[in-house]
């Protein structure tokens, strides 16, 4: 009997598309060896099954139980590099996705894993910081702060204990690249953390994982255990332990200082900065806080050199960015490309146009605090500076497309209600401003608004932008104000008389 080796993703979204139902059928067959891999991120094709072909993998997309017979006979598979969605990407951080088993340490190592750590261990901490400086890596969590700068501040800080905190509280709606890394390539994250530990002299690491990601927390915990058993959690002669801590559903805990408060077990209330966490963070000790993607980007930089990273992307946004395309597009999924392509190109090339029967209305980039773009503004290049010049954010790379059935006043009301709900309450502009703005939007939505209300929203927005303590209050007005700017008629239409 020939045994067919089949690959099927074990990612939460692949399961949500029905991967486990297929796995059950396949595991019952004696002629099948099933390997549960990470996902390639082309979720519109999931559940997708792959087999080894003469020149790489063959792919069967959107598999149903009825397709299994022809699949097992080897009929109908398509070579993986003939799928433009995948072929047109530049995979660096996501190079293992769809290929390896997430918890197979040997596979990770066989594909170059821990080469970055090896290179780092041969370097003095100053030289690692220098390499990061050359790479021009900016934090991928939203603020885009130069990574070398944070590491250097923490390295120079004089303290008996220093910490590393991985922000895995990926709360921005429309984003899931951190979840994919935790579930699909956890050793890459661990490697990045260990490089950081060697560089700054950290004594302990924490991964603060949002409660909505139970599979991610489970996988990364097992990966830590496996790395420990393989004696990889050794940094400069000391054991470096990494603990996974669960969040409890608060959006603002994705803000680094609120996250630290939460890690210490208190209400996730934002701290005033300075002091910055690199100087005084967790339990008042120097702490490097970065998101999952940032740490996972580091191993390649050490293995391939800072210059390699700096050779990709645009002038001030170097490297690649995993964009997560969602909403009403035909081909939702994760796409890793160098910075620089325009938003329109991304939506056309990868998004594949609108879902059947839908007409484009607007796109929001950067999560619930991101600005809205109408059709006329889509030629903006995907990079930090073009977005910041336009008063927008790239955030965590989430792209959500809305169709013409979306009511902009109701959407604006949703945005402000979200901020009012999630505000930590520390600063007045966010705590009061978001509630007041929601009330005004409720009035407009209910046909009880006035021209003055629109002026009041603008005024409230300006105050929140200028005086809020963190990005939640500071960014909350942007989606609302861009909705009013680009779709003003929908707002004025609801004003009486």
């Amino acid at each position: 009997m020939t045994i067919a080796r089949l690959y099927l993703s074990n990612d939460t979204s692949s399961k949500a598309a029905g991967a486990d139902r297929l796995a059950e059928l396949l595991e019952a067959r004696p002629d099948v060896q099933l390997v549960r891999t990470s996902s390639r991120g082309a979720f519109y094709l999931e559940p997708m099954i792959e087999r080894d072909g003469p020149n790489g993998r063959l792919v069967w997309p959107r598999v149903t139980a009825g397709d299994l017979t022809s699949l097992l006979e080897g009929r109908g598979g398509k070579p993986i590099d003939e799928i433009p969605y995948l072929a047109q990407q530049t995979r660096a951080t996501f190079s293992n996705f769809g290929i390896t088993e997430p918890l197979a340490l040997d596979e990770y190592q066989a594909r170059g894993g821990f080469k970055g750590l090896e290179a780092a261990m041969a370097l003095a901490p100053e030289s690692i910081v220098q390499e990061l400086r050359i790479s021009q890596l900016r934090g991928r969590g939203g603020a885009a702060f130069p990574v070398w700068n944070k590491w250097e501040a923490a390295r120079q800080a004089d303290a008996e204990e220093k910490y590393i905190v991985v922000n895995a509280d990926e709360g921005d709606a429309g984003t899931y690249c951190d979840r994919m890394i935790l579930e699909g390539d956890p050793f890459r994250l661990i490697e990045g953390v260990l490089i950081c530990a060697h560089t700054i002299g950290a004594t302990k690491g924490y991964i603060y994982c949002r409660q909505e990601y139970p599979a991610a927390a489970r996988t990364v915990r097992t990966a830590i255990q496996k790395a420990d058993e393989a004696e990889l959690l050794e940094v400069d002669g000391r054991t470096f332990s990494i603990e996974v801590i669960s969040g409890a559903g608060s959006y603002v805990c994705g803000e680094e200082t609120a996250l630290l408060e939460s890690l210490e077990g208190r209400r996730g209330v934002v701290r005033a900065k300075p002091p910055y966490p690199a100087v005084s963070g967790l339990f008042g000790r120097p702490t490097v806080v970065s998101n999952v993607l940032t740490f996972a980007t580091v191993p390649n930089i050490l293995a391939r050199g800072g210059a390699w990273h700096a050779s990709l992307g645009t002038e001030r946004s170097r490297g690649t960015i995993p964009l997560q395309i969602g909403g009403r597009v035909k081909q939702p999924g994760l796409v890793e490309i160098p910075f620089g392509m325009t938003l329109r190109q991304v939506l056309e090339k990868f998004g594949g146009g609108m879902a059947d029967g839908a007409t484009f209305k607007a796109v929001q980039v950067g999560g619930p605090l991101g600005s809205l773009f109408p059709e006329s503004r889509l030629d903006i290049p995907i990079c930090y500076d073009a977005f910041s010049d336009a008063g927008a954010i790239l955030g965590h790379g989430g792209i959500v497309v809305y169709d013409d059935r979306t009511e902009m006043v109701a959407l604006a009301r949703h945005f402000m209600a979200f901020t009012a709900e999630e505000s930590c309450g520390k600063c007045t502009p966010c705590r009061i401003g978001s509630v007041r703005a929601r009330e005004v939007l409720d009035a407009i939505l209910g046909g009880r608004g006035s021209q003055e209300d629109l002026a009041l929203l603008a005024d409230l927005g300006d105050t929140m932008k200028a005086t809020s303590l963190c990005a939640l209050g500071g960014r909350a007005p942007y989606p609302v104000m861009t909705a009013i700017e680009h779709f003003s008629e929908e707002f004025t239409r609801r004003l009486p008389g």
Partner: protein
Amino acid sequence: MITRPPLAMMEPSGSRSAKPPAKPNILKTLLTIQQANGHVPIDSVPHIAHSLGVTEADVAGVLSYYPDLRTNAPGRHVVRVCMGESCIANHCDRVLQAVDEYVGHLNCEPGRALRYTVEKTSCMGNCALSPTVSIDDDVHGRVTPGNIATLLEPYR
């Protein structure tokens, strides 16, 4: 050869940090209680505060702050309808309505504990398969109002 002890993870007191935090971790304690008990009864606050050596206000403050901490027992199954932007763009309001209609009918079983607790949740990170509904630990994608009954029925 010196063998190292395995990593102690997630136990509140098992952390191997060189200097353990001096103050008790209220959030971790409440999450542990909820995991064991399903919820944190509001009248247990004085007891928790006393055993941690903190004030009742400290405990109540943390308990009321985090959306995932509950003070009432949930139904046998927790159904979460995602309200993240990708799901909103895919008109999840209709999915929520269908869930409410289906559950409203079934939650009236006399003499039994609530079958479902329905909650709206912010993004679950399943955005490429919007709209998303999770039932207990299972995440379901590409949900339509029409397949709600088939989806929920097996969870009894």
